[in-house]
């Protein structure tokens, strides 16, 4: 027992442990210590095996979510008060309060367990040892496994985009330049997408960055429901195994990813809108 304590450095005073921990995270590859669960694998190595799958889930579903949300927002924003607008707004609000994991369980139960259209768990079929989601040879199998988790993320998070996009569209469409565009005799589609939507898109960039923390949180839960081998599933296993070094490492990496993504979104915003200067 004493030897084990020494091996994990738990015999040192807390402040020495903490200083060492901080110093170690700055090295490359970052040293978060050794995982209890996957002993003797270092925490960083363990996380790096799971992270690509989460990035794949979050990345692809964010793109789909943004497109779906923006299109719905443009459509309902261009005819505020119409039946289509009221219907989409009400459904969006309902989906907005829906817990990610509950939606995941429902989809899992309908499409995987009852209808057998999609696999119940995992990221690839048994026998396929895809090391990362971009493995071209098995992309069909990988997409088949990723479909339900991604659908869950899209359905549960598109509402944030569509609700805001709708309101910005309503605002933009009452501007003078839209009247001008219509007076020029441009087709309605050009007015909507070429003029109004382009301007209404700007806040969406910030929103995508801000939403990322929310989507990552959702992805963690969805991975647990679908036993998808991403960092969420890893977090779940770390919680069950009381693997504190692994948990800290996960938290560190996830936070870093979200902060970095926000930074990129800000830079991108400045690039798209020359009025913004940092």
């Amino acid at each position, binding site marked *: 027992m004493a030897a084990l304590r020494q091996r994990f450095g738990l015999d040192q005073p807390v402040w020495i442990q903490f200083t060492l921990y901080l110093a170690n995270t700055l090295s490359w590859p970052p040293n978060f210590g050794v995982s209890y669960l996957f002993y003797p694998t270092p925490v960083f190595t363990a996380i790096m095996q799971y992270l690509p799958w989460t990035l794949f889930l979050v990345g692809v579903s964010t793109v789909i979510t943004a497109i779906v949300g923006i299109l719905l927002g443009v459509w309902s924003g261009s005819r505020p008060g119409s039946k289509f607008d009221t219907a989409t707004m009400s459904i969006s609000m309902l989906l907005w*309060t*829906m817990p990610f*994991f*509950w939606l995941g*369980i*429902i989809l899992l139960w309908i499409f995987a367990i009852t209808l057998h259209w999609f696999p119940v768990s995992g990221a690839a079929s048994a026998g396929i040892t895809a090391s990362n989601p971009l493995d071209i040879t098995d992309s069909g199998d990988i997409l088949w496994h990723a479909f339900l988790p991604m659908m869950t993320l899209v359905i549960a998070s598109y509402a944030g985009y569509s609700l805001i996009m709708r309101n910005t569209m309503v605002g933009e469409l009452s501007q003078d330049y839209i009247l001008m565009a219509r007076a020029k005799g441009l087709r309605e589609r050009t007015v909507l997408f070429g003029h109004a939507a382009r301007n209404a898109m700007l806040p969406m960039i910030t929103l995508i960055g801000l939403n990322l923390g929310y989507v990552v*949180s959702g992805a963690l839960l969805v991975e647990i429901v679908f036993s998808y081998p991403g960092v969420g599933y890893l977090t779940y296993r770390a*919680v069950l195994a009381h693997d504190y070094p692994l*948990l800290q490492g996960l938290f560190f990496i996830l*936070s870093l990813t979200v902060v970095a993504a926000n930074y990129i979104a800000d830079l991108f915003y400045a690039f798209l809108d020359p009025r913004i200067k940092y």
Partner: protein
Amino acid sequence: MQVTTQKKLRALASHWPSAISEVLRHRRAQVGFGIIAFFTILAVAAPAISPYSPYAFPAPGVPYASPGPRFPLGTDYLGEDILSEIIYGGRVSIAVGLIVALLASLVGTVVGVLAGYYKRTIDEVLMRGTDIVLILPSLPLMIILAAYLGPSLQTVILVLTVTSWPAVARVVRSQTLSLRERPFTDSARVVGASDFRIITKLLLPNLASIIAANAVLVVTSAIVGEAALDFIGLGDITVVSWGTMLYWAQAYALFNGAWWWVIAPGLCIILVGLAFVLISVSIEDVFNPKLRSL
């Protein structure tokens, strides 16, 4: 038009009862309050209404009984009555939501008002702290805090409060920044009112609507967050709440075809969450007439 809305606003700020009745005139708010009243009555009167105890031993029915006359919502893997679990579970879920909203609004308001009122260094320090908590992904933050504090109801409340207050602080600060530049704040300062008096007598009453609208939203996110923590197993899994029901259902319900066990708690979470969102929207509608044209 402009003058009348301004007058109306001022009247609203000084007459809370009329403001509340104004909110209640909205169809959305009526639906929201209706749903909440329904679930509150269920929760408060649980021992009287509930057909069985959710902790009954031996369990009243056979495991995985489908919904029927004896068990309207079926039974779980132990044979416990799902309806009774829903009624009792609402107690925990709604109580956690309300307590978290109260605590988060308290912390968020204090931080936001101080930062907005004193500006400069205090603002910088408080807001950088707020931003850090705000930008961190909330669920991983909750998980790591809960993992260290150990699973219990207090942990869930504390963890949800920690992740909920920054949003309130941000909104309150920006509103305070605008309020402190208004003429009435200047005149109060000229008359010699202390900072404490200005904050409590002038700023807080004017902030009340925005704090209320946000607090109501926090209830929704806290109820969903509590369910998520319970679902991962970081809550107290021996207590019956809508979240722990889903925790056990995830493990046992699906492969035994017990869909009723999954549907019921999820629908309750969505309904109550939606109710609070509807109320929040109505509060904003009443106090921010600009939104009415949308």
